[in-house]
């Protein structure tokens, strides 16, 4: 959510920024995961059950990226940010 606006400033359009955000977040996820793992903050076995659904979701999501209009995508994305933001401030 932070990477997408930054990438747009670097000259990507909305769709490109969202796709490229994955390549930025992925290495960060790996590093963070290793930190969490070394501190024993990950329960690996109970986490695995979310992955099959997730992979199917990734296939649907990447396909949606090709089909949906960028303006609609932006609107959905900002609605999501608004929701997450309100949740964080309230929580």
């Amino acid at each position, binding site marked *: 959510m932070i990477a997408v606006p930054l990438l747009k400033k670097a*000259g990507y359009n909305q769709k490109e920024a969202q796709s490229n955000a994955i390549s930025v977040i992925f*290495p960060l996820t790996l*590093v963070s995961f290793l930190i969490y793992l070394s501190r024993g903050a990950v329960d690996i076995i109970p986490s695995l059950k979310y992955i099959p*659904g*997730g992979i199917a979701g990734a296939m649907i999501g990447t396909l949606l990226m090709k089909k949906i209009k960028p303006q609609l995508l932006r609107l959905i*994305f900002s609605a999501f940010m608004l929701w997450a*933001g309100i949740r964080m401030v309230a929580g």
Partner: protein
Amino acid sequence: MNDILTATLAGLISGIVGSMGMGGGGVLIIYLTLFAGVEQIKAQGTNLLFFIPIAIVSLIIYWRRDVIDLKKNLQFILWGICGCLPGYFLATKLQNGLLSKIFGAGLILLAAREIYGCSEYYISKRRKEAKRKSRL
């Protein structure tokens, strides 16, 4: 059985949102903390593990579509990695604290700006259509 079904559904939604670069982690963490009763720091750990295969699948698909520009992204990756360790310490020290509220406020501002930008686009589109119709 029911447990597997809800887990798959939570994974599916998180996977869709995550693969579109919209922070699927938010979805999975919310499910884990609010519905599955997992504590925050463990939910974050699960979410990190979850995102690794999702990111690999998405990246392969986007890479084939030739939309990824690694050279341009490198600076963001390097700066981001520098933020990982301090991020972990913040997450453990300020778990329910100020940080997430500040972050949330930032998100609301960004979202408001985006929604304003989108509404301008739709309004100008409608005006153009109205103009075209009045000409006919």
